[in-house]
């Protein structure tokens, strides 16, 4: 269940009754789903308070979340918490003293200097292993955070808005364009978002599409699920990326259709180059 789907659910915009029933049923019986739904609801409330909703979303939001005096009071409470957090200076990170531990050990009467070398080696090995593990965990979380951000950026609600500082580029599938037509994106501080228009040239149409993006020099790739065709007439898929996620180099996008039973179509490949 994606955030975008739950957002549509919360705003009463799910056309598919079966999906709505399934979410409701899980909301009633599964604590994890309940917390996820309520967390997405918090994001929605925040977007309302930050004036980030479209006109339709805003109207639907108000009729669901601001109809009674109690609801309006809850919104004011959330706003007051946000206002406080924005106004409050960030607390500095508290660092715990590390030297004192060594000092204490060193001053222990039973602590023999002869033990220092093996102990130090053991500690260094432990630190190295821990830092490798922590680093891999951090990388994993970072990867998930970026994927989540990409999914949110490409949700139908986000795509219906045109943010400032966005540029659009059409990419031709590698199979139909000539080599010299490589699209180039120049990283500029005034551009935050790039929107790619990806023509879908295969005969078969799909209810959803999935894009996988990767920089050719990197092993890491990011998957963006639940992309839709712009309309039935235009067989193109829009994909938005934040320029902060890009670095100079050549990128490849693999786009594939996802059937209702989860089957994937063959990939269409698109590419572009990022320069400073």
């Amino acid at each position, binding site marked *: 269940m994606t955030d975008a789907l739950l957002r549509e659910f919360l705003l009463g915009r799910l056309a598919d009754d079966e999906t709505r029933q399934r979410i409701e049923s899980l909301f009633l019986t599964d604590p994890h789903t*309940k917390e996820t739904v309520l967390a997405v609801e918090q994001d929605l409330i925040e977007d309302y308070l930050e004036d980030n909703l479209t006109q339709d979303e805003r109207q639907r939001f108000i009729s*669901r979340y601001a109809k009674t005096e109690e609801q309006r009071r809850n919104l004011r409470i959330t706003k007051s918490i946000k206002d406080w957090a924005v106004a409050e200076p960030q607390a500095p990170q508290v660092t715990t003293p590390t030297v004192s531990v060594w000092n204490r050990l060193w001053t222990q009467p039973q602590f023999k200097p002869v033990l220092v070398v093996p102990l130090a080696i053991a500690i260094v090995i432990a630190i190295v292993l821990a830092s490798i593990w922590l680093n891999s965990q951090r990388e994993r979380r970072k990867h*998930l*955070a970026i994927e989540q951000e990409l999914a949110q950026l490409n949700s139908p609600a986000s795509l219906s808005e045109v943010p400032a500082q966005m540029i659009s580029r059409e990419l031709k599938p590698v199979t139909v364009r000539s080599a010299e037509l490589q699209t180039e994106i120049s990283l500029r501080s005034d551009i935050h978002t790039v929107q790619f228009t990806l023509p879908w040239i295969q005969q078969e149409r799909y209810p959803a599409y999935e894009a996988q993006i990767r920089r050719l020099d990197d092993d890491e790739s990011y998957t963006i699920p639940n992309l839709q065709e712009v309309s039935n007439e235009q067989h193109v898929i829009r994909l938005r990326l934040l320029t902060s996620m890009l670095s100079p180099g050549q990128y490849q996008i693999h786009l594939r259709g996802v059937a209702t039973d989860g089957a994937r179509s063959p990939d269409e490949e698109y590419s572009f180059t990022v320069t400073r």
Partner: protein
Amino acid sequence: MARNSAIPPESFEEILAWLDPDREVAATMYVQLYHDLSNIFRWRGCSDPEGLTDDVFDRVARKVHEVRLTYQGDARRYFHGVANNVFMENLKKVKTQVSLDDDEVPEPMSAKGDEAGTLEMEECLQACLPKLSPDNRKLILAYYAKEKQAKIDNRSELARQLPVETLRVKVYRIRVSLQECIERCLERKANQR
């Protein structure tokens, strides 16, 4: 709000027993189920979610004695089924009625002139914040500190320390406890007036 007094005590007890053998757990589930169904009606766009939820509980109370013996599965799913029926009936009713009230709802944040209320809210927030643990206070401060694009960057940074889903749920729980504290504080202030 709930008008559960319409439910006969024996039916109420039977609903509790159906939800869970432990009466205390069942009572918590009962209250939770009430809120959850109200939420579902609200998300479906119903104008009186609590009234419809009352209706669901009334109907289940009338049937619980028979249904309980034969129904297989989670009792909450049965309530959900009844809620579907209530919703459909209400939909027909609404379609045949001419609405007397305007659907326009005032913008909650545009209310001007409620400076006293804002001041009270501020006082309650300041009274409730010290009740959070320093870690929770720091987390909620960091989470809500930025808006718009800066917010996305800030949360990606926070997500380096905690998976996004865990982070969101954790913040949600802290915010709910803070909100409940503020609500209690506001109620106390209102009673003092």
